[in-house]
């Protein structure tokens, strides 16, 4: 259904031989595309014959790599090779129709290699998250061997944070301590006094304050009943 599509890697040095062989075997050149990556530019050459569509990918082409032009055998590729030169800065040599960088007259050179601010922000965030995850995973065995965090350690961790975040982190750490095997040192929930409850709901909008107040009152009641029991 549709073409039979394949993706293969090929080295820059073998490109010309590969193209000569494909030309002899009757393949048709479809296109050349470039992808901008952190290790340079990846080129993808596509060829088609009858029901097959073969994509050959050259990885990590930098400014000083000389890529041979295939226009001698496949003249139809001239717009793509000139585009690669103009928008991505790929050094293609030996072109039949060479526009010398003037094919697309853009105001900045190699615009496709420049990341937009949103994309850059997303990429940095993803990199930070991945680094944090890796760091955490390398730290995990240390924590597990030492045992779960005690209540004082938990309190120390949540010391400087705003109330909602503190609650969240506290519950999460308690759950983790429980999972780590040691019986959770869940302290008897202190019955919260009225002033403490009011302090907690101080900064919130009215509906949320109501909800939180009701929930905390219920919890306080339950805690005092448990303490009495």
């Amino acid at each position, binding site marked *: 259904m549709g073409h039979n599509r394949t993706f293969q890697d090929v080295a820059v040095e073998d490109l010309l031989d590969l193209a000569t062989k494909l030309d002899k075997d009757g393949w048709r050149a479809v296109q050349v595309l470039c992808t901008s990556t952190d290790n340079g530019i990846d080129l993808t050459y596509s060829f088609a014959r009858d029901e097959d569509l073969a994509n050959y990918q050259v990885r990590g082409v930098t400014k000083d790599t000389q890529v041979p032009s295939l226009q001698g055998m496949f003249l139809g590729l001239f717009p793509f090779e000139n585009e690669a030169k103009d928008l991505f800065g790929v050094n293609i040599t030996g072109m039949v129709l060479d526009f010398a960088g003037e094919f697309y007259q853009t105001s900045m050179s190699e615009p496709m290699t420049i990341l937009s601010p949103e994309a850059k922000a997303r990429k940095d965030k993803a990199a930070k998250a991945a680094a944090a995850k890796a760091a955490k995973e390398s730290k995990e065995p240390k924590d597990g061997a030492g045992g779960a965090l005690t209540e004082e350690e938990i309190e120390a961790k949540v010391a400087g944070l705003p109330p909602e975040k503190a609650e969240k982190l506290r519950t999460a750490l308690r759950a983790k301590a429980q999972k780590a095997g040691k019986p959770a040192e869940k302290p008897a929930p202190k019955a919260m006094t009225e002033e403490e409850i009011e302090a907690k709901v101080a900064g919130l909008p009215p*509906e949320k304050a109501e909800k939180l107040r009701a929930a905390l009152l219920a919890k306080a009641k339950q805690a005092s009943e448990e303490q009495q029991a």
Partner: protein
Amino acid sequence: MGSFKLGKMTLSSLFKQPETILYPTVAKKAPAGLKGHIENDIGVCILCGICEKTCPAGALRVDKKENYWAIDRFRCVQCAACTRACPKACLAMRPSYMKPSASMSEDVFFKPAPSEDELAAKEARKAAKLEAAMKAKAARQEMQEG
């Protein structure tokens, strides 16, 4: 010389109705599914902002704190992606084009304050939910102790 190949078509055009209509005296009847402009039923809208994130042209602006939903008609491309993404189904595509205007502007719709009945109904729903939650908690505790 050859024959006049388009003769039949030309002759019949003399006697048929013209293909064009006398706009603006006669306006074309818009088909029912035409993508004309977006309308928002602001009473139902909860100002969640999902439509703002879905819009590919950046034409919508939703501010929950200031209580309004705004659309820049010039940026809208009438793709109707917002109508499909809206969780409350308050956005709809109406089949009439907006008239040309002399200046660029944004259409801002403020959400009206809820009426007395609506407020009371909301309070009643909240109280009912809280009571149900407390009852469920009590039931769970009894099962644990028992």
